[in-house]
C-alpha cells in the first residue's frame, strides 16, 4: 500500500482538533511567514519547541510526524547539501578541494530546522482537521473572491473531491504496478529515461480508470441533486468559539517571544 498522508485525518478531540479550521489556516500562514523572517539561533529553538508542543497538544505521535517528513527527505537533504557546499565564506575546514564555510554549516542547519518545522506544522493541520472542514474553511476564507465571479464554491468542491480520491488512485496505481510486475515489467532499474518510460504502461490505465471514476462520480452527484453553482447549505458551519481566541492568544505570545529573541 502506498503510504500517503495528505488528507489522512486522525480523529481526536484535542484543543488542536477543536480549533476552527479557518483560524488554523490563518495561523499556519503567519507561522510560515514568521519562520522565513527569523535569523537568530534562539528563534529557531523557540520555533522547534513550539512546534513540538503543538504536536503533543494534538496527540499526534512521533511516528506519524516522521511519516509525513519521510517522503520529503530528499528535498531536505538536497537543500541542506546545497547550503553546506555552496555558501561562500571563511573556510571552516576543507577536505581535498571541497571547502566548507562556517556560514554554510549555519545556513544548512537553519534551513533543515525550517523545513522540518514547516512540514510538521502543515501536516498537523491536515492531521487534526477533517477534509470537509478544511475545504469549508478554504471556501469561507476565499468567499470575498466570489464577488469577483471566482467560482469559489466549485473550487472548494474540487479540492475536497481531490483529497477524497488521492488514496483511491494511489491504491489503484499500486495495483497496476503489481499487475505489470507480475507480467514481467521492470520498474526499478535502468537510467532515469528508461524508468520514466517504464511508467507509461502505469499512467495510461490509471488515467483511463480516473476518467471512468469521474464519470461514475458525476452520475452519483447528479442523482443526489448536485447542481454546479447552486446555493448549498452545510451540515456543520465553521463557528468561532472562545477556544479560537485562546489559540490566537497562544500564537501572539509565541510570536512575541520570537520577536524578542530576534531583537535581543
Amino acid at each position, binding site marked *: 500500500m502506498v503510504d500517503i498522508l495528505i488528507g489522512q485525518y486522525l480523529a481526536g478531540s484535542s484543543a488542536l482538533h477543536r480549533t476552527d479550521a479557518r483560524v488554523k489556516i490563518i495561523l499556519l500562514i503567519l507561522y510560515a511567514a514568521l519562520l522565513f523572517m527569523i535569523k537568530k539561533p534562539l528563534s529557531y529553538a523557540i520555533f522547534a519547541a513550539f512546534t513540538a508542543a503543538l504536536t503533543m497538544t494534538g496527540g499526534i505521535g512521533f511516528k506519524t510526524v516522521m511519516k509525513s517528513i519521510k517522503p520529503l527527505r530528499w528535498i531536505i537533504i538536497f537543500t541542506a547539501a546545497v547550503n553546506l557546499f555552496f555558501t561562500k565564506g571563511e573556510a571552516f575546514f576543507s577536505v581535498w578541494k571541497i571547502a566548507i564555510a562556517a556560514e554554510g554549516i549555519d545556513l544548512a542547519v537553519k534551513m533543515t530546522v525550517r523545513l522540518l518545522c514547516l512540514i510538521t506544522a502543515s501536516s498537523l493541520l491536515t492531521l487534526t482537521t*477533517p477534509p*470537509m472542514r478544511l475545504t469549508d474553511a478554504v471556501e469561507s476564507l476565499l468567499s470575498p473572491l466570489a464577488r469577483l465571479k471566482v467560482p469559489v464554491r466549485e473550487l472548494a468542491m474540487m479540492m475536497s*473531491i481531490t483529497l*477524497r480520491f488521492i488514496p483511491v488512485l494511489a491504491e489503484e496505481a499500486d495495483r497496476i504496478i503489481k499487475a505489470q510486475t507480475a507480467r514481467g515489467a521492470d520498474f526499478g532499474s535502468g537510467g532515469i529515461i528508461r524508468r520514466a518510460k517504464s511508467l507509461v504502461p502505469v499512467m495510461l490505465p490509471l488515467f483511463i480508470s480516473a476518467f471512468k471514476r469521474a464519470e*461514475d462520480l458525476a452520475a*452519483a452527484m447528479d*442523482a*443526489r441533486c448536485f447542481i454546479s453553482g447552486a446555493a448549498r447549505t452545510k451540515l456543520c458551519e465553521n463557528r468561532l468559539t472562545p477556544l479560537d481566541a485562546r489559540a490566537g492568544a497562544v500564537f501572539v505570545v509565541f510570536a512575541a517571544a520570537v520577536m524578542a529573541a530576534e531583537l535581543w
Partner: protein
Amino acid sequence: MIKTENVSFSYSDGEQVLKNINLAIEKGSFAAIIGCNGSGKSTAAKHFNALLLPKSGAVYVKGIDTRDEKRLFEIRSAAGMVFQNPDNQMVAAIVEDEVAFAPENLGLERNEIRRRVDESLRAVGMEEYALKSSAHLSGGQKQRVAVAAALAMEPECLILDESTAMLDPRGRAELMKTIKKLNRGNNLTVILITHYMDEAAQADRVIVMDGGEIVMDGTPRAVFSDVEKIRSLGLDVPQAAEIAYELGLNGALTVDECVNAIDGLLGGARR
C-alpha cells in the same frame, strides 16, 4: 410510483438501447430487473430519476414528467439511486458528510440536515460510523452508507443499479437485508437491478430484459418456472429452482421448497 410510456432510447452512436418500454412500478413494491450485459436494464434505470431522458415516449415519477426541468429536484429526491462501485460514488471522506451531501444540495436547514443524516444512518444500521472515514469501511458497509446517502433525500423509491455486483457474499447479504427491511418496514419502493438470480427471487416481481425490451414480467415463481426461456436468454435460474428442474420437479423456488419436493420424490420412490 414510476410509469413509463413507450420509452425508446438510443445513445449518439445510433444503436437502440431501449425499445418501446411500458412499465408501471407500484408504490411499496419490490421489483427486480434482470438481463444480460447490454440488455438495457441500467439504461432503463437511469430513466427512472431523469439521469437520462427518453428519445421518444415519456417517464413519469410520482406523476411528474421527467423532462420537466423545473421539477428536477422533486424527481431526483423521489427516486434515489445507488450505483455499482462503492468507491466511485462517494463524494466525501467522512461518512456523515457523505450522507449530508444530498440534503445540502437541496438547501435544507442545518437542523433538518442533522435529523435526516441521523435517521438515514440509523435506517441502514451505520449510526456508529457517522464520524469514521469511509476508507476504513468494508464494501458492504460502504454500500449501506450509499443507501443512507440516498435515503437522506427522503425518497419514495430506491433504485439499486447493480449495487451488489462488487461485493463479497457477506456484503451482499448485508445489503439485501437492509433493502428488504426498508421495503417492508418503511414501505419504500425498491427497484433492484442485479445479475444474481437468488437476489431477484427475493423480490415481489421480476422483470426480464433482453435487447432493450421487456421479455418477461411476473412473480419470481412464474418467471423462474420457465427455466427453458430464462436459459435461452443467457440467464440462470436460482440454484434451488435449477436443482428441482433438473430432477423434473417444477415450481420450487426457495431452498425449503426444493428440499420438500426432493423429499416428496424420495418418499414416492420408497412407496
